[in-house]
């Protein structure tokens, strides 16, 4: 493991990796800073670029977009009280008040420093923890894998929106879509309706761009959004004393964000809310929260960025994407021929470490680029939407086409986009559908092997031979219910 770590360290020290990470960070901040545009949209549209780069260059490029985008979302949240991402909602509470008090520069600096602190700490934790967890996962057989996959899907459904039943329906729909094409066990055609284009299944890329990026663009078009007025970037920079005063809050939020990141489905929004609430509860002056308190900005930003690293733990060890952003990352891994799961550490250990170490380097670049470019990104909130929308659409179509060079993929992109906007109108979350689609083949494979091992008597098999898997299956509905109740409490 130590040898793999050092090999990975050497692999991460590539100039092109640093260049692409910087481009990714810049692109992420740029998109995050545009009101109405999200990190998810940027990642979905720019995902195809990573396919044509080396894994140690392409995946850090996407991670750069991810990290930059989460911070970028806090810029419009602080300056015009319009969070660029869901994760920045908690930031806007105090951030915008600080802007109104003429302290927007302080708020943005605090957002940047606490983001980098939270992100770096959680990335180091991820590097330390990922190998022991992967070793544990290597002991899993098909029944354990099936039980864990089922539990992950239930957790994602429980934490997705207000209605877990609707999330479960969407998950089943995703699983159904994953059956289209050739059966992974028997090699026979299913749900293809005799169409040649469906024989190899539904491609992931048009689905990702379609359900994540297109509905967001469509929402901007339908609302007929224009530009917003920006009050100038004002006030002094953040002082060392102010940062020191907020350090205990930043550390607390980092721990909260790290813990939440490991659990699939919870994500940045919950982390930011919990970090903010914990800071307010622990404060000796809770009445200042919501009125322009720097600690409020620090708490939310450290917590939502601390989620980034640990979400890689279930992704890399089990192949389970914790949220929609990691689902896109999974697409990048698979396209690069790297199938996340315990065997990835055996076969490609140095590459995994190189990517994880690149995440830490990315934070250092994040600090420098963010610090220097805050004034530039602050101007972006006034850019004309009518210029951006056509560009985003052309990028989306070109991205969906290049992977398979098939026009059918473009029609699928439009179809999934239409489905995504209808789901949005009907208040269905598409994330469980994508998770079901991604995990479907693996789940069916594990299910088939488990049935074969059980020799037709699954109950006795689980009860007598697979206690761990049986325990996970029993705990799944209870854990899902508890998480759903907790989510309802946190999100109000």
């Amino acid at each position, binding site marked *: 493991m130590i040898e793999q770590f050092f090999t990975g360290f050497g692999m991460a020290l590539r100039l092109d990796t640093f260049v692409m990470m910087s481009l990714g960070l810049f692109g992420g901040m740029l998109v995050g800073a545009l009101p109405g545009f999200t990190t998810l949209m940027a990642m979905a549209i720019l995902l195809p670029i990573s396919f044509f780069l080396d894994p140690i260059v392409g995946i850090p490029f996407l991670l750069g977009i991810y990290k930059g985008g989460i911070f970028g979302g806090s810029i419009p949240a602080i300056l015009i009280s319009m969070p660029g991402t869901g994760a920045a909602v908690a930031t806007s509470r105090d951030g915008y008040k600080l802007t109104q008090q003429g302290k927007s520069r302080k708020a943005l600096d605090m957002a940047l420093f606490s983001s980098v602190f939270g992100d770096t700490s959680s990335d180091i934790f991820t590097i330390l923890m990922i190998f022991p967890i992967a070793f544990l996962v290597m002991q899993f057989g098909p029944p354990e894998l099936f039980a864990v996959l089922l539990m992950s899907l239930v957790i994602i459904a429980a934490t997705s929106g207000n209605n877990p039943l*609707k999330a479960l329906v969407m998950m089943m729909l995703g699983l159904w879509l994953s059956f289209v094409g050739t059966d992974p066990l028997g090699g026979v055609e299913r749900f293809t309706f005799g169409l040649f284009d469906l024989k190899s299944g539904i491609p992931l890329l048009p689905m990702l761009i379609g359900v994540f990026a297109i509905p967001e663009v469509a929402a901007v078009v339908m609302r007929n959004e224009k530009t917003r007025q920006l009050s100038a970037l004002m006030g002094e920079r953040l002082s060392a004393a102010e940062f020191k005063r907020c350090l205990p809050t930043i550390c607390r939020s980092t721990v909260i964000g790290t813990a939440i990141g490991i659990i699939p489905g919870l994500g940045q929004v919950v982390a930011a809310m919990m970090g903010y609430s914990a800071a307010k509860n622990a404060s000796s002056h809770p009445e200042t929260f919501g009125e322009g308190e720097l600690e409020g900005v620090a708490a939310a930003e450290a917590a939502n960025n601390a989620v980034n690293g640990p979400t890689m733990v279930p992704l890399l060890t089990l192949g389970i994407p914790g949220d929609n952003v990691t689902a896109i990352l999974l697409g990048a891994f698979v396209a690069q021929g790297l199938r996340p799961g315990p065997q990835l550490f055996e076969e490609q250990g140095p590459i995994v470490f190189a990517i994880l170490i690149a995440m830490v380097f990315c934070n250092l670049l994040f600090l420098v680029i963010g610090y220097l470019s805050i004034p530039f990104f602050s101007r972006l909130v006034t850019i004309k939407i009518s210029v951006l929308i056509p560009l985003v659409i052309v990028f989306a179509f*070109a991205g969906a086409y*290049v992977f398979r060079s098939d*026009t059918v993929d473009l029609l699928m992109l*439009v179809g999934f986009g239409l489905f995504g906007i209808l789901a949005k109108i009907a208040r269905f979350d598409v994330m469980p559908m994508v998770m079901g689609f991604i995990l479907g083949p693996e789940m069916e494979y594990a299910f088939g092997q488990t049935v074969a091992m059980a020799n037709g008597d699954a109950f006795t098999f689980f009860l007598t031979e697979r206690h761990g898997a049986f325990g996970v299956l029993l705990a799944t509905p209870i854990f899902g219910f508890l998480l759903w109740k907790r989510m309802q409490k946190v999100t109000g």
Partner: protein
Amino acid sequence: MKDLSHRLSPEVLVLLVIAVAGGLGVLFIDALVAPPKLLFGRALTAITPSLFPVIILSAMTALAMLALILLRGTAGADRDAALTHGEWRRGFIFFAIMTFYALTMEPFGFLISSIIAMVLLSLQMGNRSVWQIALLSCVSPVLLYLAATRLLAVSLPELNVIELAYARLLGE
């Protein structure tokens, strides 16, 4: 009639479609899934290709029905979230432009189809500056095409005559 439209909210409609599709999927599973491959009269796998889909489709139908029953009392309650006529119209035009773009990219080539789509989208978004639209829709597809085909070495559909013009322009 008013009561019916009140009950048939987008949420209920989506659930109904999913429930019906799932039910039909289970009913016609033998027509939708090919029979398992046999070797000397024995199946090659422990489960038939239709077993897992039947479980999932049955569960999906049951969950959608359950959601419909539980939503009975609340369906249509959230009328504030309903879209206005103008929003529906803008959404329809947007998807019409995207469908047109998807259908024309191969026969018209990337440049021409992108120019048309960008002009239409710019106009839809309220941009009335001819110079801005012309600059945006002519320059960005060319730059994107050259970046994709020359830097990333991936293919985008293009007419031979335009591809030849690019090659001449770049001195290839």
